[in-house]
């Protein structure tokens, strides 16, 4: 068999953020994936930590002591931020991916409009709501408590 002399040019994970000049919706896509993976990692750690309760009160107290302190408060806040983004953006995506808020097919007449134009108010609204939650969450984590 002849050797393949072509150069593989798939961007890979780097293509989520780099390798070209991209639009804002791509970064929402990337952030959605990263926050999803972050939340998954948190849940795995969460299951391991809380399962120590099955080993008795002393084990539970010890594991709770290991995950306390300012660094873990910051970590929990980041989990909250990831959760706020993933849920609200996820709700937006749920409706968009079922064809709501993306407009109807139109005849393409230059300058072209596309579904991102129809989706823009929803994306901005979601980002605004996320920002409010992030600020309120910061006050709750670091000021009120």
């Amino acid at each position, binding site marked *: 068999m002849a050797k393949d002399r072509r150069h593989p040019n798939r961007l890979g*994970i780097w293509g989520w953020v780099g390798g070209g000049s991209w639009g804002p*919706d791509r970064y929402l896509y*990337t952030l959605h994936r990263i926050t999803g993976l972050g939340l998954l990692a948190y849940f795995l750690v969460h299951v391991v930590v809380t399962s120590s309760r099955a080993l008795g009160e002393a084990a539970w107290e010890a594991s709770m002591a290991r995950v306390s302190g300012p660094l873990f408060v910051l970590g929990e806040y980041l989990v909250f931020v990831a959760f706020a983004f993933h849920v609200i953006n996820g709700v937006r995506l749920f409706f968009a991916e079922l064809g709501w808020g993306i407009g109807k097919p139109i005849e393409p007449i230059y300058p072209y409009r596309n579904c991102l134009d129809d989706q823009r108010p929803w994306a901005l609204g979601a980002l605004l709501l996320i920002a409010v939650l992030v600020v309120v969450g910061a006050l709750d984590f670091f000021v009120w408590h």
Partner: protein
Amino acid sequence: MSNGNLPEQIVFRIRRFAPGRDKEPVWKEYPIAYEVGMTVLDGLWKVKETIDPTLAWRASCRMGVCGSCGMLINGKAGLGCNTQIAELGTAVVTVAPLANFPIVRDLVPDLRPLFDAHTALSPYIIRADTAEQEEPTREYYQSAEQMEAYLQFSYCIKCACCMAACPTCATDPVYSGPVALAQAHRYNTDTRDDGFEVRKEVLADEVGPWRCHFAGECSRVCPKGVDPAKAIQLMKRQLVADALGLRKKPPLAQPVEKPEGIERRPGIPEAPPPTV
């Protein structure tokens, strides 16, 4: 000569790759004289004619119809022939081959993955009355509203710009990509077509639309305004509705009965006989 805000001379920064000679693509720079109205494709011709005749790319119509000259221009996928250098507004124009496809040479991508995915989704009218299709006697009736449901997606020229921009295509070689999926939806929505069940079998698999998470890059870069992201999301709605038994299947378009007792207006010639 007025060049607007651009200097007399601009630099084409081109990603070159020669199979057998280069292990990795390399960037090379070519200064050329800018002329008003020059497109990126014109610039490539200028480089080839005056500096380096070995530069390779694919192009044909030079008018945004054939879809051959898709490339990354200043990082954004687009057609070389309908991208004005003045529109870019930069004195350095970077040109690279479309991402996510193997490079054959310089700016020539191997688009076989696109055409394989496209073929797998049966991008043509499927219906039982094959005799009428082979030897058409009448026209199928379709209302303006029915046509508008798919017309936008039928403007696709398969230039592959959308697939080069898609972040899912960047990581997932199995995913069919925006071209094939938009075309599958184009035919699924056509009231003359009865092939939804055939395409559904393919779409239900991992090649289907479920790996799209609405990054929207395909629609942003499409040089024909096809809006593949919209087609893919509408397809998801159609597939979900079908899975829930809620899909409203429009009646299959039927050949229009030839009106009887109507005289052709004088001066209007008869339609020519079918050629296919």
